[in-house]
Every structure is written in C-alpha cells, then in structure tokens.
C-alpha cells in the first residue's frame, strides 16, 4: 500500500506518514488497511496540529488539517499516541475499530527495535560508534555498535521502544526524564537529529 504525503508536508503529516508506513509492515494491519475506504482525522490535544488520512484501495493520502469528509476525528496526544475522544465512532463503528488497529500496531521488543534502529542510523554523520542501552525495568543491557561505549541510554522498556521506534526525540525524552543519558553535547545533538529524522521517516522504515 502506498502512503502519499501532501506537497510541502508539515511535521505531523511526515510523522504520521512514517508511523503508518511502519504499521503497514505488519501483514494483518496491511490487510486491514487495504479493506478500508474513507477518511479519518487526528486532532492534537496539545497544539493546533491536525492531519487527515484518506484511504482508497491501495493508497493512503495524508494532508494537513481536518477534511470535511473525515468520518471520524480522533483527539490525540501525539507524544504518547493516547486518544482522549473519538468523534463519529458511533456512526462509523467498524471503520473506527479499524482505525484504532492501524494506529496501535504491535509493539516490538525493545531489543528488536534497537537492532532496526541501529541499521537505520549507524552510518549517519557524527554518530557515536557504540551506544549502550539499559532497560531499567530489569537492568538488561544491549549494546549497539562495537568498541568503546560513547553513549549510554537508560529507560523503561516502553520508553526505549518509543525512542527506537521513531516516537520520541532523543533530547526531548531526556528533558522530560523519560530516558536518562550519559553523552557528550556533540553526541546528544547528533542523536537528537537522527531521532527527529527517524520520527519523520527520513531514514527509511
């Protein structure tokens, strides 16, 4: 299925486009998506960002704002992907269920997410050679790269997955205390840059 973004897309269009492309790598979600017809919209509960997703056969088109023909409107915190309200769910219950499935793909294990993350980012300019991840739920460690450890990242499995899966910007996660980091300013900046690119799907899926 093709995910098509508007011309000169705003951030939320790029971010949702990347999230949907990732979700579509799961065969059952792809099957669900290809059976869907119509539009739904997402309205941020924390800022003016809005995006409409139109589904038609093998194509998903994302545009900024809320289209008039959006069957359901989901009020969502884009940072956590938690929805607080869904307008139109009673008029389009099946469609709403399918949208919910599309937006909540299965969460990978944090170590699997780490492997994929490293494949996508390790060759980016200025990247640290080695990054150690520590899951604070059980103190399990996973090292990305070889050699001397340049950066250490600590966090709960759920937060590590968000970082590694393109749902958290490195520095913002650290600022909010969702992850703890041991890194130079240079590596902090580079990891923040690549996590932003990852979030917007600029490094592949």
């Amino acid at each position: 299925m093709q995910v098509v973004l508007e011309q000169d897309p705003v951030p939320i269009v790029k971010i949702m486009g990347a999230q949907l492309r990732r979700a579509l790598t799961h065969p059952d979600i792809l099957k669900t998506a290809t059976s869907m017809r119509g539009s739904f919209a997402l309205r941020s509960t924390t800022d003016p960002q809005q995006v409409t997703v139109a589904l038609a056969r093998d194509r998903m088109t994302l545009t900024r704002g809320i289209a008039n023909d959006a069957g359901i409107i989901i009020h969502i915190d884009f940072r956590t992907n938690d929805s607080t309200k869904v307008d139109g769910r009673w008029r389009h219950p099946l469609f709403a269920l399918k949208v919910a499935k599309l937006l909540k793909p299965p969460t990978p294990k944090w170590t699997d997410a780490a492997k994929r993350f490293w494949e996508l980012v390790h060759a980016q300019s200025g990247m640290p050679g080695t990054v150690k991840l520590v899951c604070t739920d059980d103190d399990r460690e996973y090292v990305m790269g070889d050699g001397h450890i340049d950066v250490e990242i600590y966090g709960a499995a759920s937060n590590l997955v968000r970082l590694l899966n393109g749902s958290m910007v490195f520095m913002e996660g650290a600022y909010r205390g969702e992850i703890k980091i041991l890194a130079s300013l240079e590596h902090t900046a580079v990891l923040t840059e690549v996590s932003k690119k990852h979030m917007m799907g600029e490094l592949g899926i």
Partner: protein
Amino acid sequence: MEAAAIQDWLDRHHVEVVRTHATTLDGPGVGKYIRRSKFTKSLPMGHGICESALSMDLTGSPHLSHWHPQREDNLGDLLLKPDLETLVSDGIDPQVAHCICNFTSPDGEELRLCPRSTLQRVVAEVNDLGFRVRATCELEFYLFRASYVALRENEFRDLSLVGTIPHPTVYLIRNAYQATSFMREVTKRLGLKDIVWESWNEEAGVGQLELNLEPSDPVRMADNVVLTKQILYEVAVDQDMAVTFMAKPSKSLASGMHIHHSLTDSSANPLFHDPDSPDRRSSLLRNWLAGIMTTLPAAVSYLCPTINSYRRFADFSAAPITHTWGEDNRSVALRLITKSAEATRIEHRVGASDLNPYLAMAVIIAGGLAGLRNKLELPQEFRKIAWGLPDKYERLPDTISKAVNALRNDALLKEVMGEDIIDYWAKTRDSEWLAFHAQGGNLESRDISDWEYRRYFELI
C-alpha cells in the same frame, strides 16, 4: 586600531566600560559589559563566552539537534574577538564604549559559523578579484506607543501604533510627524556612533517607518544595521515605546529589508555601468546579476529566516513573490537601477525585516560570485507587474520548508559559502519549522500566532 593605541583611545573618550556585541545566526546581539581593565587585558584575543551564545535559537536554547565540528563540546568557551576598528563611544552614557566582535575558537581560530566571519570571507573573495562591494540596507520597522512590558502583558493584542491615519498610506508626513520625537533621539544616537543616516519616512502604513543608511562596505553596513536596530530598541525602551522587526506583526503591510549593492574597482569607480552598451549594463553586471537570479530561490532561506517572514508573501502586498528581475520595477524580486554610472545598482527586494544582515549580504554576494565564476547568462527581463501572474511564472519559495529545500539543492551557493555552513543553517531552519508546528503555531490561520509574537516580537 592597534591594541597598543587602545589605552590612549579609552583615555581620550573617558571610557570605563566596553560593551561587546556579536551577532548570532538568528540575528540577536550577544555580548558583555566589561570593565576597561578586563577588556584591555583580554586583547587581542578577546573574552570568553559560552559556546551556546553562538549556537542557540531564539528561545535561548542551545542547538541540540545539529552539530558542527567547530563547536565546543560540553558547552565549553568560545571567544568574542573585538574588531577594534569598530570601537565607538556610546555618546549617551559617557563611561561606555561599544565594540563589534567575531566569534572565534578558544585559540583564536575563525569560526565558520560566525555570521560576521561568513560575510567577511565572501567579501574577501570579491576583493581578491580586484572589486569592491558597496551596499546599504533599508530598515523597515513598526513603532508602537506602548512599552514592551505593556504589549507583552496584553499578549500583543490591541497593538497601539504610532500614527493615526488608519488606512494604508505611504510617505505621509502627518503620520511621520507623530514619530518625530522618537526618531529625533534615534538619529541623534546614530550620529554619536558615527552611523550616517540618509533619510527616514513613514513607509506603507500607520506605525511603519523606514530608515535609510549611507552605503558602505558590506561588513561595515551589516555592523551599522545591527547597531541601528539596537539603538532603535534602546530609544524605544527609554521612551516607554516599542519597535519590532518582525516581518508581519499585524494584518497591515509587512516589513522588508531591501538591500542595495553595486561593484566598484579598488579606486571606487563604478563597474556595473557601461556607457557603450545600449542598455548601459556592463557584462560584469550581467554575470553578477545572473548569479543572484540563479541562486535566488535558495537564498530565500537566508533572506526570509523565520516562519513570520513568509506571511509577507502575497500578491499585491508590495513584497516580491516571483523569480524575476527588471529595470526600475518595484514588483520584481531584483530591481535594477541604471540611471547614472554612480547610481547603477541592484536593489534586492526579497529580504524580510527579520533577516540577519551579515548572512543576507553574504548569500547575495555569494550568488554574484557564482555568476562571475560560471559566467552565467542573465534570464529575460520581466517588464510587467509581477503580481497576480498565471501559474506558469515561477514563484519564490513561500514557506520556510520550501526555501530550505531549495537551499539544500543549490550547488552554487554551497561552493561559495561552504557546504558545512549551508547544512548547519538548513538544520536551524528545520528546527524553526518543527518548533512552530509542534509548539502551537498554525500556518493556515491568517492571524499572527501567539507563538510568533512571543518568539520574534522583541528579539528579532
């Protein structure tokens, strides 16, 4: 001025404190008030300042989503190296002098990210060819009766502009008269700092003024622009008023910063004029202007650096919106003026009032240099009104993201200015774009957002 002569200069001007002034990428001035003894002791290297002074955004946050190899890791120190040729007495405060600085590394190495150094490098390339650039900027800004404190407390609503004729006017003396006590003080302070102004007038609407400075070399001109903006701010504070260089602070006409420039030889003989050419345009002018035209879509990123800059772009709004040039045509992007040899110049009309003058002049001159190096051919002149045109006419980038994409794809500017400089700037614009959308702005709204007022009104 040699460092050894500084003591004598400071004695003669009774200076006890020097305020250093360097310009960040976004344009705000940063520096310190320094005791005379500390200032002289720090020469010629200059004094230390945290690296975030150069690498920070308009909210004061260090750039944490991009990196340049010359940045100091772990928030180490840079130096502010005084350019002693710019040392000037305050004139109002008898103890204080001011000095423009460049950012350098801790061992005095030039920092490529320093906007003033970027302009100096580009100007040096022109000078090496035996040419000299003369330039000037038109400063457009809005003047308010209320203080910054009052405007901020009122969340920038009910902006009380200076002037009373409410509809768009231009050069209206009655509106201008209401700004005379403010401008009298401004022009007095300009004179005290050896900044030669030529004229000021009401521009295109109530509260909008334009101040024109005498041309000089580009670095001196950019210095004068940042000092003039600081003077305007200080007079406004002293008089419980406010000025803003936001490109579009209200629904009325926006503010630009048109930049005029020409080339001369080292004896100041004009080189854009050719009396033997039917159109009086020299071949040097053709190549130079062709370079600026070719690189213009990419240069928009520097000329219109903020989200708010792009609210200026609209048909029939006095701002150019098309990729055009023309002779004495104020609707095109590049207005060529060839009335006499001395007056022959290019007026670059794309710049918004919120631009960084060092970087804006650097990108314009870099375009000219690219035209000379590659002997670029000038596209056809546009001889009509360049607003309301059919779609087949190329528009300039009209969002910060389109402009940054054009910049990233421009090989000519990268060659002259350096790929690392372009890349770093582009990433700062990505951050500006992301911050606007993620922190509460709405491009679809025609109203200026609170986010824009909070971020730009006082600082830019």
